[in-house]
């Protein structure tokens, strides 16, 4: 024991013990629990990195090099992954040309790339996340409540069965036919463009699911026939009445009145 004593009292002995202890406990912890976490963390940061590269290439011109926003586009700090997923996976972003509203079009990025972009933007500040599969499980959704909520909160713009309709100055509420439940959920959550925000506190996830279930349910309703004329209400019906209907009547009047040859 004697020979050890001086070393034990060595000024660095405590540090050595501390280091050994840390390495052992840290190593043990890492051996037990770290592998997945570490991989996940690195995969996450990897996705953020790739997302950042995609962002700099495709989005930074309008939204700024660090997503702070420019005169051409709003800041993306704090918009959350859900907003990115909504805008990019429906093809609304990247914007092709200026205009009153970004239209739905074929997407420019595949699903992995959208996730990477979303991961990058989510890393900039807290915002709504992409809804999980559980959040989108419509199996126990209340259709009746969904219908009532839809007619109160959504139908004024999107029409009674989600057909969409006109807003001011060329803007419009899009048709909801064929829109995925994830996209609808994200739209309510983030309030893209003209649409107001319906956060989880004002419409609970359950109510959102009920609304989505209602919208998808009415799409499956059988068509009773007739000319729907887009089913967007009096605008298209009036147009057809004034042009086609009156046109036919005028044509008949001209035919009746014209001198026979």
């Amino acid at each position, binding site marked *: 024991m004697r020979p050890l004593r001086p070393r034990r009292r060595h000024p660095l002995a405590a540090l050595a013990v501390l280091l050994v202890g840390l390495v052992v406990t840290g190593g043990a912890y890492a051996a037990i629990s770290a592998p997945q976490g570490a991989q996940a963390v690195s995969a996450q940061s990897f996705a953020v990195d790739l997302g950042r590269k995609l962002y700099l290439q495709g989005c930074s011109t309008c939204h700024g090099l660090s997503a702070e926003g420019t005169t051409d586009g709003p800041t993306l700090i704090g918009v959350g992954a859900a907003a990115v997923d909504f805008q990019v996976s429906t093809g609304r972003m990247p914007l092709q040309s200026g205009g009153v509203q970004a239209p739905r079009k074929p997407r420019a990025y595949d699903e992995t790339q959208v996730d990477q972009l979303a991961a990058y933007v989510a890393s900039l500040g807290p915002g709504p996340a992409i809804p999980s599969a559980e959040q989108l499980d419509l199996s126990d959704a209340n259709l009746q409540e969904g219908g009532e*909520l839809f007619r109160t909160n959504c139908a004024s*713009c999107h029409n009674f069965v989600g057909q969409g309709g006109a807003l001011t100055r060329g803007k419009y509420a899009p048709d909801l036919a064929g829109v995925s439940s994830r996209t609808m959920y994200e739209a309510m959550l983030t309030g893209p463009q003209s649409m107001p925000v319906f956060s989880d506190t*004002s419409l609970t996830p359950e109510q959102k699911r009920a609304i989505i279930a209602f919208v998808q349910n009415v799409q499956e309703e059988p068509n009773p026939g007739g000319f729907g004329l887009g089913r967007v209400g009096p605008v298209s019906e009036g147009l057809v009445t004034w042009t086609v209907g009156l046109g036919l009547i005028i044509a008949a009047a001209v035919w009746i009145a014209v001198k026979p040859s």
Partner: protein
Amino acid sequence: MSDRPAEGGAHALQPEEHGQRLGQPHGQPQGQRATQGDQHEAYEPPETVTDPAQQGLIDDPHEEAPRRIVEGEHSHGPRQTDVDPRAAKRAERQVAALFAVSALATVGFVLAYVFIDLDSLDSLVWSNRLLGVMLALSLFCIGAGAIHWAKKLMADDEYVQSRHELRSTPEEREDFVDSFRRGTDDSGFTRRSLIRRSLIGAMALLPINAVILLWDLAEEKPGGPGGLRETLWAPGVPIVAAVTHAQVRPEDLAIGALVNAEPENLEELPEGPPRLNALANSAIILVRMEPAEIRTQQGAGWDYQGILAFSKICTHVGCPTSLYEQETHHLLCPCHQSTYDLADSARVVFGPAARSLPQLAITVDEGGYLVARQGFQALVGPSTWEVP
């Protein structure tokens, strides 16, 4: 009376000439009126008009082969079916074919009605389509056949029937004055002043009945709720979300949020018309924007941390308006496109509405829920004569 109806006009004709044929058919000398009997006579080729330019009938005196258009006469050449018997025969067959199509369509209508079972939505759609098409064909083809018949085959002559004089004859007029005088004398209306004055007095008071009956429609009915403009909002009335009737906290509303809301005391009213009528003017919308984005409000500090409450009833004709565009803070009414700028006291920026949407001053109660600070200060609902 002119011997040229073209210039004399129809009004110059005397009543006994009703039914006079005008429009010289096919080349009879002008001024010589045809009689009723000629219309079935064989066609005669038109004579050349001697000098149409002199008569002011055509613009260009050098125009070749002038058309025989005489103002007031509508004179025109023969039809194909007048000169070509084969064309007439063809037209006859076409007319008959149209009538036959109509008859077949009627049969088809009956068949479609009898034989299509309405056992599925598809068959209902087909039934509607067939019934509609058959009915349209059977009606349209009769009309079209009749027109085609008239245009191609019926006698191509034009008639004028002048209308009788509107003024009554002097005898009738004198007669009327006489009987009126006799009535006045016989009734003694001028003589018996007591009766006359009491009658005038009674008639003058009569409209009061109607005023009393319409009294109840007055908006500001004194005492008791139920006036059209009286809403349920009062100091401290909690704001609840529509449908769910859940009270609303400020933190429930994100920036850009829209909540369709109503007063909590709406639930105290009996279900049915009383509640619906109250909702019809008490419905509001809550929106939240960055407080810095609010340019003006209808009252100082009527928002709560950027949350603004407005009546949902358009001031134009009272449609519920909640097409809120959160980027521009514009609220659009779907009925007539009135647009309000909610960041600027709900000023009308477009459309027929004449005044801003009334704003509701809000605050929070001790529980942290949004409540009305006071009732509406401006009248809610559509504009009228008193509330332009």
